[in-house]
């Protein structure tokens, strides 16, 4: 999980260098990440982790925090 997190943080920071991802609890609900950011993050993690995030996975609960994103990646890897 730690490995997922460090790779994910790299992707996130590359996409939005202006955001302190580890300190945020509501990235979607507080409108810090927009739909364009989400698509770009998802395409990166699809490539990096060799998974396929579906449109139905794009709900706030899965993207509000870094940990939630890690869980999503972990779940999809084990599917």
């Amino acid at each position, binding site marked *: 999980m730690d490995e997922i997190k460090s790779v994910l943080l790299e992707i996130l920071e590359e996409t939005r260098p202006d955001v302190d991802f580890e300190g945020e609890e509501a990235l979607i609900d507080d409108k810090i990440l927009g739909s364009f950011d989400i698509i*770009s993050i998802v*395409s990166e993690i699809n490539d990096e982790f060799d998974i396929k995030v579906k*449109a139905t996975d794009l709900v706030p609960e899965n993207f509000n925090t870094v940990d939630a994103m890690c869980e999503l990646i972990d779940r999809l890897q084990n599917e």
Partner: protein
Amino acid sequence: MAVFSLNFIAFVGIAVLLYYLVPRKYQWMLLLLFSILFYYISGGLKAGIFIVITIANTFYGALTMQRITEKTRQTIKNSEHPLTRNEKKAIRAKARDKRHKIFLLSLLINLGMLIVLKYANFFTVNVDGLLSRLHVPVQIPVVSFILPLGISFYTFQTTGYLIDVYNEKYDADRNIFQFALFASWFPQIIQGPINRHDTLAPDLYAERSFNERNFRTGIYRMLWGYFKKMVIAERCAIIVQEIITQYDAKSYSGITVFLGVLFYGIQMYGDFAGGIDIVIGVSELFGVHLAENFRQPYMALDVSEFWTRWHMTLGNWMKDYVFYPLALSKPFAKMQKNLKKTLGPYVGKVIPTTLASFIVFVLVGIWHGASWRYVIFGIYHATLVSSHTLLERVYERMRAIFHINGKSAGWKAFSMFRTTFLVTIGRYFDCTPNTVVAVQMLKKTFSTFNPWVLTDGSVFKLGVSEREFSILMLAIILQIAVDVVNERGVRIRDVIADQQVVFRWIVVLAAIWAIMIFGVYGPGFDVGAFMYQQF
């Protein structure tokens, strides 16, 4: 029946009274009854068969998909011999295939009805026009249908439900009459907001006792909506009408024309957001909470942000059911990979997303009406949003060169004005009868420079007197003040609801008084129905 008419208020009054009087298990039935009655009184019965078809089609489509899933689970669980992994996989694949077919059929019926009823006329007229231009001696008959009341809203709401059940986001509804209530809930059927089943349905089906606080805040919300509609939107309408219909005859040009369209935008905001305030307020009287549709749109810093604040439920619908699935689809993923290889990671990332968003905005434009001016309206906004994304890095560099702090208050204010300006330009295609007039008005706007009309008293000759104009300005300032407070996260009606009873009554009576005294109830009273009803 327009939601700002006295008839509507009486209708709601009777419905509320009965709702809290009948035994609780009948409450949802009463809401359904009143929704049917509302549809009937509003003249929806002429094309009422279509909403019935949509309800039945969506309900049974979703339920059948749900049953297939349940049956598959049962089959796997109750199998006489332990199934191998491959056997289970085969059973699931067969079920998935069946569900997929049912889903596509139901989706086709829903969207097909919307497309045919709303766009057949537009399509046939244009094809005929093209044929005659090409000198082809063939004409297809022009078809025109009565547009069923609220079709764009109920089709989107039910289709969203269908997609959610297909994606197994939640279970299908088991009661067709309850589902009919979800599809036709009377306050929202005419102008939205477009709600989701998992949040709206439980509220509609619940059994509840009278909650005074809900009732109180609901009334406040309604009053604010009536104020926006009657005091601001109806007064703006006079100026808009004068400038847009008389711009040629009276040679209006330059800033005057721009003002007309700017006031049109304010009118739209008062009209649509005010209507939504009433719809949300009325729903709250029954303890039903609807999704918000506006979030201070004119405080957006760029046009893409504007669309996350204006008609939010349509934007979110498009995002969840069109943009995301499209941007994550196989062809888009492939395009992304190819572009990444040839033109680098940034272009590879930005172009497919921009294309998906472009398609969404054209759809949003067409959603507003079957006409070329809405197609252009859509393309205009699509271009603005796309260019913003594509040129983001250029903008960043420019800000760095000119030492502009993107987070300063001055820059934010400038960005808000810029957004308002760009959105207003787009409205030229919305407020005019056709694209020719829109282009002529744009030419008139930019061919004359006449800022003195703002100070030489010309604005008082645009259909409203100086006194009327001042009332409008004060009302708009009040609206802006409320928006600023809302933007800071303060819900004014909660603050009022927490005050002493005397203060609360003073606020209510003052609001009613202001709506009665300053509201515009001209000869256009009947026809000035909420503009979004036509969608």
